[in-house]
């Protein structure tokens, strides 16, 4: 499988880095593997994985659920874009972590607030990519839609949606990475399961082997999700001029 070679490369880089830096902050891969097998697998690894997965997927889903319409409207209706874009531009740079207090007030410290936090973080990049994608739809197709009197719904279904589908997958890939890498933000408070929670726990204790074990699992989880996204894209996106 093609992903194995990539993993080999990462492993190699990791070994080289561990060797060059030769500090406990980068443990050697094999010791991390051993730790994983020793400590993680027998214990509650699957729980950590599942909790993180659940939060990410739900967060992604909620974010895209709102980002896709936002992006489409902003991309299609210039009048509204003039309103939406500055709002996005103003809110996107906000450090979401600084709004933790607001989250806690509004949503408590349970799972909901973690999921919404992830959703909000990725809502912005997703909206911006989708908006940019919609703006790039060839004018010819939009003119075609007018000439053939497509209803709003048909324009959406037959032109806009298929035209931006590759963009949606692209933004899915970007936001997936973001949501995984900010997992630790949402799982640092009041969690007892989740990979972010494990990473944080090991981190504050400077337990680098354990931390890398959790990171490795996170990274593999990411790869798995990416494989799924790539595969779904091949299924959904129309074949294009080939060879």
């Amino acid at each position, binding site marked *: 499988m093609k992903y194995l070679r990539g993993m080999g490369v990462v492993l190699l880089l990791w070994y080289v880095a561990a060797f060059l830096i030769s500090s406990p902050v980068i443990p050697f891969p094999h010791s991390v593997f051993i730790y994983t097998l020793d400590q993680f697998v027998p214990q509650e690894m699957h729980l950590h994985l599942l909790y993180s997965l659940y939060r990410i997927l739900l967060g992604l889903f909620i974010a895209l659920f709102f980002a896709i319409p936002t992006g489409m409207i902003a991309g299609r209706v210039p009048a509204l874009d003039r309103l939406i874009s500055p709002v996005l531009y103003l809110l996107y740079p906000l450090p979401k972590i600084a709004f933790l207090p607001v989250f806690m007030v509004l949503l408590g410290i349970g799972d909901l607030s973690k999921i919404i936090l992830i959703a909000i973080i990725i809502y912005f990049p997703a909206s911006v990519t989708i908006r940019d994608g919609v703006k790039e739809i060839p004018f*010819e*197709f939009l*003119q*075609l839609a*007018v*000439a*053939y*009197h*497509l*209803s709003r719904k*048909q324009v959406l279904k*037959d*032109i806009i949606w*298929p*035209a931006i*589908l590759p963009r949606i997958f692209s933004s899915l890939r970007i936001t997936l990475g973001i949501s995984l890498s900010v997992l630790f933000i949402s799982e640092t408070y009041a969690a007892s399961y989740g990979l972010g929670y494990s990473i944080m726990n090991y981190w504050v204790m400077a337990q680098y082997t354990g931390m890398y074990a959790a990171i490795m699992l996170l990274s593999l989880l990411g790869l798995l999700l990416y494989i799924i996204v790539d595969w779904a894209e091949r299924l959904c*996106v*129309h*074949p*294009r*001029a*080939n060879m």
Partner: protein
Amino acid sequence: MILSLTDAKLDYPKTTAFQHFSLTVEDGEMVSIIGRSGCGKTSLLYTIAGLLPLSGGTMQRAFGNEGVALMFQQDRLLPWKRIIDNVLLGLSKEKTEEAATFLRSMGLGTVMHHYPHELSGGMRQRVALARALIRKPNILLLDEPLASLDEQQREMLQNDIKKYVRDQGITLLLVTHSIQEAVFMGSRIVMMTNKGVSYELKNQLHDDPNLRTRDEFFSMQKTLRLHLEATR
């Protein structure tokens, strides 16, 4: 009267596509439009289809936007839709059988479920033609519908379109570069430049089934050719 333009003018940012253009089309007429490359024919069809607003003059249309079907000069097939779905664009699934019949009659029966990029240039053009015809509009605007086809197929489709349009009572505006085609298809042939209509010819023999073999068929072509040359 289904369409009437008076002193119409269309400006692009850098150029004027056409101006001083006046034309009245009666219901059921078949008007061929010829003119040099770049004289504004495509732009004219766009205005009639409601895609571009006139910059000057007036246009009266006895039909809504829904009553027009425009076949673009470039095929503009949607790359993500199969051929049959491209033809059905915006129509209900009930028309599938009709679309298939259209495609088969154009020799595209075997590629109905292919994607546009798998077709040759001429095949794509026929798909675009089918997509316009199946709509049975009040007024049909064809922009060089047969430019990429071989002479045989061209003649065959000329016959088919003419018959279809007449049977359905559709008003036709046909832009073409082929004078032969203009005369065969048009009950009236309008020659345009970007300064308006430069010449008009009524084709009295339009309904004659043997038009292609009539001497007048060739003499009309000759007349048009001479006039075209004069506009150089």
